């Protein structure tokens, strides 16, 4: 469901498919396992292959943003397209997380 790549002080987690309440719990658990395994300064969440997201996905990102902030790190969101980009923008995610193309 998700893949990851560690690059020095950065961890890239690449999500895919549809993110709603049904898929949220598993995505969150997998992300947290990776975050604890690789304590990095920057977490980059790549949503380029996410085809749908509702406010459950926003909840996941805000939760991970809080975890990273508590550890003194940052969260960035990369690659959002169309519907996903609009809901991220709408929810103000880009105000707390840097947007990467």
């Amino acid at each position, binding site marked *: 469901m998700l893949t990851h790549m560690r690059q020095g002080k950065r961890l890239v987690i690449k999500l895919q498919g549809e993110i*709603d309440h049904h898929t949220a719990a598993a995505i969150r658990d997998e992300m947290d396992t990776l975050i604890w395994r690789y304590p990095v300064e920057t977490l980059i969440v790549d949503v380029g292959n996410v085809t*749908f997201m*509702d406010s*459950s996905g926003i*909840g996941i990102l805000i939760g991970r943003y809080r975890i990273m902030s508590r550890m003194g790190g940052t969260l960035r969101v990369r690659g959002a397209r169309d519907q996903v980009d*609009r809901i991220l923008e709408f929810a103000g995610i880009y105000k707390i997380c840097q947007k990467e193309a």
Partner: protein
Amino acid sequence: MREYMQLHISSDSRNESFARVVVAAYAARLNPTVEEIADIKTAVSEAVTNAIIHGYEQQPGQIVVEACIEADTLRVEVIDYGCGIDDVARAMEPLYTSKPGGERSGLGFTVMQSFMDELEVLSTPGSGTRIKMAKRVAARQTAEREDEQEQLR
């Protein structure tokens, strides 16, 4: 007879995607843009999710999704017979959630409100909630639509 569709589903979280896809397919006869379809899907997903996690608190229950088309407008209702909402005005405030521990963003109603043209929340504590939404799907010129469809081919 009025033209409509009605879907009865159990409060199983797999039905979140099923319900939004069904409503989007129904709305297709209005020839919506890709963006309008995405708005409709997102709003339906929010309403059905709320019925499952708040209305029925993850317990088994029945959800009814109704849609009809009136001229250029899609109307959708999502109905549950769950716990209902005590204070609808507070529930609709941006960022308000009654489940702060569960990583709910409290943005469901705000999303429904801004991705659709109309939102009405009717709820009776103890007997359930009815979400009524509408979206007009005729804002664009036909030429623009044809352009987009050409690009999709």
